[in-house]
């Protein structure tokens, strides 16, 4: 496949544990950074399968340190091995008990079938009851029988060992409401259960084969029930039906069955040992057919479902869903890579002008106020009577500004009021003009900047602060700003 990724070193189970945990911690990374990173990785992945895409992504971002998944994976593998070993040991023990023959009492086929087929089939039934999930009608029964299941015991042990994180322990709770976690826990329980059962049957079968090979066994059947040989023959033939066409020699004949009936009080009437030993193919195939094969089928089924549940455990997580979306969606970025710093604050604001009686000249900057309004403003707000008024700035040329300065210079020397539009920012152009005005007016006279608001409103605090701050940049001790309201 084009762009196929090499097989990962970690298992799907480990990734299903580690990826959501990592993504949870990754919430601290800014969303824009996550979006860009994941999209960039997503564009390099060509797998269409979301699980493969997520795992491919993980191989690019995974930390080198081992995550919780590896630890849990080891615990899981160890529990699997322990269950297989315990199952095998139990199978060996039960088989030794079932095939016990010291030469005096032959192996009772009825007991053998009960121990190696009927009891395991009952356990199989118990396992199957857990398969339908948490149905209300079965819930009570399931809770009752769960402790009998070795898989449930293993799951409980696993949860206890995994309890480092509450979120992780929930993932292994088969009673949880989260679909993927519940499904995973159920199939993990089923798989463990089948591993133990397969181990049991393999152990029993191996023991039986060894005993048949290395000891001489004699089989008979005996029961207190009122069963005659014909009934037993029908039962035995029904049991042997699955293999009667393939291995007819493993189907005990009616004669053998009749000869094999055993009564304790009639212990002396034994058929020939060779004839009695002819039962062994039947017993071995019974264990294989009714013990081992169903469990193997269930093990394969549970393994496949567990694999699917591991995929769901990974994908059915909101954080992983968001990751898949991020990988598949084009990134749209509109921000700057970096941002400008704010302009430096000047050292000090210009001082407010304190009202004082007197005469003054005035310059109206940018036509912000009419001459009569300027006179009224100077009288009422500054306590000054305006003598000469000139206009500058705005649409006038720089030459016209110089003429205005000349006119002020030739007028009566004294305080100069410069009316400016309060709503406009103080431009450097105006500061140039104020510098030139100071040069023409001389250092001893006050210059008052009077920002006037548009319409009838008063100058706002922000406007006053803006003008005081700008004018303060000239560091002129006799340059004032009209006090705010």
């Amino acid at each position, binding site marked *: 496949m084009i762009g196929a990724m090499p097989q990962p070193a970690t298992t799907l189970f480990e990734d299903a544990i580690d990826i959501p945990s990592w993504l949870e911690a990754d*919430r601290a990374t*800014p*969303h*824009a950074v996550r979006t860009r990173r994941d*999209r960039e990785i997503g564009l390099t992945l060509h797998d269409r399968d979301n699980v493969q895409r997520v795992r491919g992504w993980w191989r690019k971002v995974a930390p080198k340190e081992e995550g919780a998944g590896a630890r849990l994976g080891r615990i899981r593998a160890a529990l699997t091995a322990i269950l297989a070993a315990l199952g095998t040991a139990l199978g060996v023990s039960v088989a030794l008990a079932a095939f016990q023959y010291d030469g005096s009492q032959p192996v009772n086929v009825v007991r053998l079938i009960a121990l190696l087929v009927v009891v395991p089939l009952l356990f199989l039934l118990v396992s199957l009851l857990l398969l339908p999930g*948490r149905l209300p009608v079965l819930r009570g029964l399931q809770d009752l029988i*769960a402790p009998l299941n070795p898989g*449930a*015991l293993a799951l*409980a042990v696993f949860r*206890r060992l995994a309890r480092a994180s*509450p979120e992780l*322990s*929930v993932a292994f709770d088969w009673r*949880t*409401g*989260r*679909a*993927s976690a*519940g*499904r995973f826990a159920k199939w993990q329980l089923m798989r463990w259960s089948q591993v133990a059962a397969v181990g049991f049957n393999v152990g029993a079968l191996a023991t039986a084969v060894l005993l048949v090979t290395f000891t001489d066994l004699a089989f008979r059947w005996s029961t207190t029930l009122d069963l005659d040989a014909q009934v037993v023959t029908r039962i035995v033939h029904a049991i042997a039906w699955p293999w009667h066409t393939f291995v007819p020699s493993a189907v005990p004949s009616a004669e053998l069955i009749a000869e094999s009936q055993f009564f304790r009080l009639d212990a002396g009437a034994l058929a020939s040992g060779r004839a009695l030993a002819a039962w062994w193919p039947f017993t071995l195939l019974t264990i294989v057919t009714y013990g081992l094969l169903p469990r193997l089928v269930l093990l394969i089924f549970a393994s496949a479902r567990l694999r699917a549940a591991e995929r*769901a455990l990974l*994908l*059915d997580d*909101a954080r992983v*869903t*968001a990751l898949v*979306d991020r990988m598949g969606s*084009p990134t*749209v*970025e*509109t*921000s*700057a890579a970096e*941002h*400008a*710093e*704010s*302009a430096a604050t000047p050292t000090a604001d210009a001082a407010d002008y304190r009202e004082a009686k007197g005469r003054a000249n005035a310059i109206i900057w*940018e*036509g*912000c106020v009419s001459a009569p309004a300027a006179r009224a403003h100077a009288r009422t707000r500054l306590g000054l009577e305006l003598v000469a008024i000139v206009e500058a*700035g*705005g*649409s006038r*040329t*720089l030459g016209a500004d110089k003429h205005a300065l000349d006119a002020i210079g030739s007028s009566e020397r004294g305080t100069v009021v410069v009316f400016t*539009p309060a*709503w*406009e*920012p103080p*431009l*450097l*152009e105006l500061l*140039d003009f104020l510098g030139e005005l100071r040069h023409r007016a001389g250092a001893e006279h006050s210059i008052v900047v009077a920002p006037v608001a*548009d*319409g009838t409103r008063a100058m706002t605090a*922000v406007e006053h*602060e*803006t003008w005081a701050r700008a004018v303060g940049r000239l560091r002129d001790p006799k340059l004032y700003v009209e006090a705010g309201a």
Partner: protein
Amino acid sequence: MSVPRFAIVGHPNKGKSSIVATLAEDDAVAISPHPGTTTLSRAYPMRLDGETLYELIDTPGFQRARETLAWLEAHDRGAGERAAVVREFAEAHSADPRFKDECELLKPIVAGAGILYVVDGSRPYGRHYEAEMEVLRWTGRPRMALINLISTGDHVGEWRAALAQYFSIVRVFDAVRADFGKRIDLLRAFGAIDESWTAALTRAADALEDDRERRKHAAAAEIGDLLVDSLSATVVVPLATSAADAAALTSGRSKLQERVRRRERDARRSVQEIYRHAALAIDESTAAYLVADVFSEQSFSVFGLSAGQLALTGAASGAVAGTLIDVALGGASLLLGAGIGAAIGAAGTLAGAGRLAKVSVLGQPVGGYELRVGPITDPNFPWVLLGRALLHANLVAERNHARRESLALDAHAGAHLADGIDAERRRELDGLFRRLRNEREVDAADRGALTTTIAELL
């Protein structure tokens, strides 16, 4: 084809940076009531998977426009050479600190950027703007004027008349209050100033609209996950015996509540990040609804459903279940199923109100017991959580990036509350909430449906 580039120019403090912050959805752009905040030109490229579709350039304002124009006029060699003269001005003054701002703002223009000239339509027009508009005309670049509205005054008419003398396209654009639709309209309008840019700008606008939809969907998914996580949350407290004491119960309940609170905080942060408002704070004085504890009586009274609404919603869900029985019986039940289902649904919902969470003691196969607190069973709780999340997400989604104050509720806040959800959607949501309460399985398909419903409410 060259990438469309737009220099945002104008007088200082007329909202250039606000327009950039709004269009670039970047709340880190420095905006201040004091002029001179922007000292350097800065590019804000719009990239789609790394490919630049257009670029906005924030610039400092004109400081010595008349002097600049005087220099240009002094070096005039005729109309055909004016753009070259502007370039010469920028080159000649690149090291002159007096014309630092003019050089910064002219640099991208002489490099080929279009011009977006910004003025404040809430303040009077003045002829002192004519020098800078004339300088821009000298550049010969395609240009558009934007009338921004910083405060409450209305001088748009006089500005329109004046700007029309210098610009073929004049638009009013409120940088601080423009919603997403207006921003996209403006972006598409940029294409009108140079036809060769139309295709790229249309593609950019389409991409931004798609991205907006994705973000809405992502925010809805975040809220959906908040609901699923919070409503299915359980906490486990180990017990020595099968009897749960009061201390264990208190501990379990408070752990559960803290978990939900933390999850809600995380969800809010995620939603804000999705809409690029990571640094946005909530104003405690004007957004008390959002600041109040999710388990408080205030939250339940503001965001929860009334007893009547709860009963109706429960009855509707119960009736649906009962109807299934009627259908299964081929109508032989004379619709008794629907009727009984409705009655049971309503009664069950009302009975659950006021009881916060389920409590159970479970034996462990390997010995010992554990107290399990959760899921939260109060039927009103999901509506409280959903109402708060919808209100928050809608405020954040509508929030303009040029605004700098904390998140506050406006007069339309009531329109976001959960009781505005129509009956059909409410019934759908109630069905899912019930399943979570009853510890039924919720899979990816359920979450997808929940996300879709929430996205429709955003």
